[in-house]
């Protein structure tokens, strides 16, 4: 209680997100993770310019080349392609596989959740019971089953993962919306006679968005692992697209021969997923409003 002392008198109007940013910047680990993610995202975007070599150029002589081999600075893969270039290009596909499903699920699940939470009653019942059904499957199992049913491929994998994430995001959105809606300021807004769309926009969404976004961000790491798991089972991205999961799967045999090179895709997945987790933890911490 007394540990928190009165707020500073000056607090700018739009200062909430700035405050979150400030509090986020004060966490060195989260900042480091954010930097890692930034580097990965930027290099994925600029893969065509950054990658030192053609990610598809095979070289029989440089199969599983050791790290540090000239022209294959991070080693060569099972076809002698440049690991570094493939990791950079692979980030593009892997991140897309991780982010797109969550983003789409965020739109769908967020919409359903907010709708259910704000409307309440029968609408809530209808939407959330359907979500419960999807929630009744272990997530990776559901992804595997859907991807298995649809067949391998990047798009199918994304569809499968999207379906996996809709229900949990909808649940979070619904519960946050229900909480927000119970606040007296929403009651006051309704009392003012404002149209529902305006209440949603001004009072509900901007209070719901934060927690839901943070949750979705944390799901990105789940998505990274699940997507690579699909590739591992042969249900994800198709070759020759460089994808970390696919690379991991293709190189798992080389772990016996050149473990350091073969472990790179797994390490990339781990690093990225970890960075996402640390960043979303950091944002969550930065978003905590302390009275």
């Amino acid at each position: 209680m007394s540990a928190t002392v009165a707020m500073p008198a000056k607090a700018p109007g739009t200062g909430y997100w700035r405050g979150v940013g400030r509090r986020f910047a004060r966490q060195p680990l989260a900042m480091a993770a954010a930097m890692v993610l930034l580097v990965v995202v930027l290099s994925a975007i600029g893969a065509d310019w950054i990658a030192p070599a053609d990610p598809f150029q095979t070289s029989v002589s440089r199969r599983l080349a050791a790290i540090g081999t000239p022209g294959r600075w991070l080693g060569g893969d099972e076809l002698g392609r440049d690991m570094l270039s493939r990791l950079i290009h692979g980030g593009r596909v892997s991140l897309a596989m991780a982010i797109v499903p969550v983003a789409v699920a965020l739109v769908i699940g967020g919409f359903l959740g907010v709708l259910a939470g704000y409307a309440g009653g029968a609408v809530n019942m209808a939407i959330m019971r359907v979500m419960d059904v999807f929630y009744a499957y272990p997530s990776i199992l559901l992804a595997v089953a859907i991807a298995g049913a649809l067949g391998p491929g990047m798009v199918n994998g994304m569809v499968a993962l999207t379906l996996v994430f809709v229900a949990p995001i909808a649940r979070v959105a619904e519960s946050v919306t229900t909480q927000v809606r119970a606040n007296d300021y929403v009651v006051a807004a309704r009392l003012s006679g404002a149209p529902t769309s305006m209440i949603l926009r001004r009072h509900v969404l901007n209070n719901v968005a934060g927690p839901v976004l943070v949750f979705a961000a944390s799901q990105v790491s789940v998505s990274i692992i699940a997507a690579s798991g699909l590739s591992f089972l042969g249900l994800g991205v198709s070759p020759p697209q460089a994808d970390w999961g696919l690379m991991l799967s293709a190189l798992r045999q080389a772990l016996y021969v050149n473990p350091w090179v073969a472990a790179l895709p797994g390490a990339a997945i781990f690093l990225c997923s970890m960075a996402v987790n640390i960043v979303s933890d950091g944002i969550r911490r930065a978003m905590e409003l302390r009275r």
Partner: protein
Amino acid sequence: MTCFTPLRRIAAALLLPALIGLSAPAAAQGTLRVAMTLADIPLTDGAPDQGTEGVRFSGITIYDGLTNWDLTQAERPAELRSGLATEWAPRPDDPTRWIFKLRQGVRFHDGSVMNADAVIFSFERALNSNHPAYDVSARRQLQAFIPAVKAWAKIDDYTIEIETNGIDSQLPFQMTRLFVVSPTHWEAVGRDWNAYRRNPSGTGPWRMDALVPRQRMELVPNREYWDAARRPRLDRLILLPIPEVSARTAALLSNRVEWAESPSPDSVPRLRQAGFTISTNAIPHMWPYTVSVLPDSPFHDIRVRQAVNLAIDRDGLVQVLNGLAVPSIGNLTPDHPWFGTPSFRPRFDQAEARRLLAAAGYGPNRRLPLKFIISASGSGQMYPLLMNEYVQENLRQVGIDLELQVFEWEALRGRRRDGAQGASNRGVHALNNSWNSMDPYNGLLRFFGPNELPPNGTNWGNIRDEVLEGLAERVKGEFNPQRQAALLAQIHTRFVDQAYFIWVVHDVGPRALSRRVQGHVHAKSWYVDFSPLFLR
């Protein structure tokens, strides 16, 4: 090994030293454990599923066909030899009727006598839906492999007659697939094929001792096997389904098995280093692209077919596969009697490939887009992703943009059944499917002609060639082995010259063996005979 020292040190630090030695495997002397690529034990009722792999492990081990493959030598392609039939020939008066003389004194594992009734029973249960023992599963597994069979009859206790659909010299090859089951035992287990599968009885060199579905099948020698030369020397043979390649490697390296099928190319150096033998031999199994020659396909143009064949660096691929393949320039290996004398030699000549493509109207300004359907894995498919990626890169260098559409194995088989002309395959120019080519039908005849069009056959690409079709007719009526071989060589010559396939490699049936495994003969066949094996 050196690369792993750090990991090893970490592990040693992590785990209590007390753990060491506790799990040291102690295999019984003479027990051979085999890691199969299959996910499950093939059906054990004499009509094994899972294709030739099923026949290899659950077919020729427990059962015998009327004819058997000779798997005793590694130099020449495997040949037919007598099995439960001692001699066979078409009747001179009617070449559609064959007389099979049966071997006497053969007993099933249940003790009952193998005779004509048993053989007839084996036909009935698979092909006669009115018979009490009819089993639809057996029919599914068998029918396609014995298409020549039309009718069967007992002549005496040790003689039967088989009638073929038209004249067909291929019947003896097909009879390797008809495994003879015991009617007495079927009665004994309550006329239930599921019970029979749990407790099978055949005449083969191995008896099944234990079966745990999806985990393990244990075979023990049939000490009374009729062919003394093939009486197993091992005490026990354990077959383990381990579909995941890294798990098979791990099983080998940790001495959980002495024999692993299809080690991955990348693990070969490590396995060799650890003292394992990587046994290979060119087996009658090819890994090509079956192309669509329909008018709307670029492969309708022979120049494109030849260009693609010339664009592929087969030696490079073999190197990538660590020698677990041999280059393929036809359905058969050049040393095969049916190889013939094709004038077109698929080789690595990208300049020529570019020239042919240019002649066909493609060039740097008009790159050729192609779409192949492939599988992610599957029986006999070798290392499809890796190999296709390699080919994709080869083709890119000559101006072909290859799109690979990946399916899981059974879905790809579905696409195969639809044929290139099927709606689902619109826009698809080739199918990557490996084929076994151990007999004339499987190796050559099924890839062309109207009778073989999907869904009734495997002429996926709609190859119509009067020359080939005429030769095929003649083969069916030719019973003299030499003349038959000559005709087959003509077919293969024409098939290669027309570049009806894009050949890549032949499988070498790689298997990794512990040094303790002795007596192994790597026959040029999909099959292997476990009988001569023993452990040191």
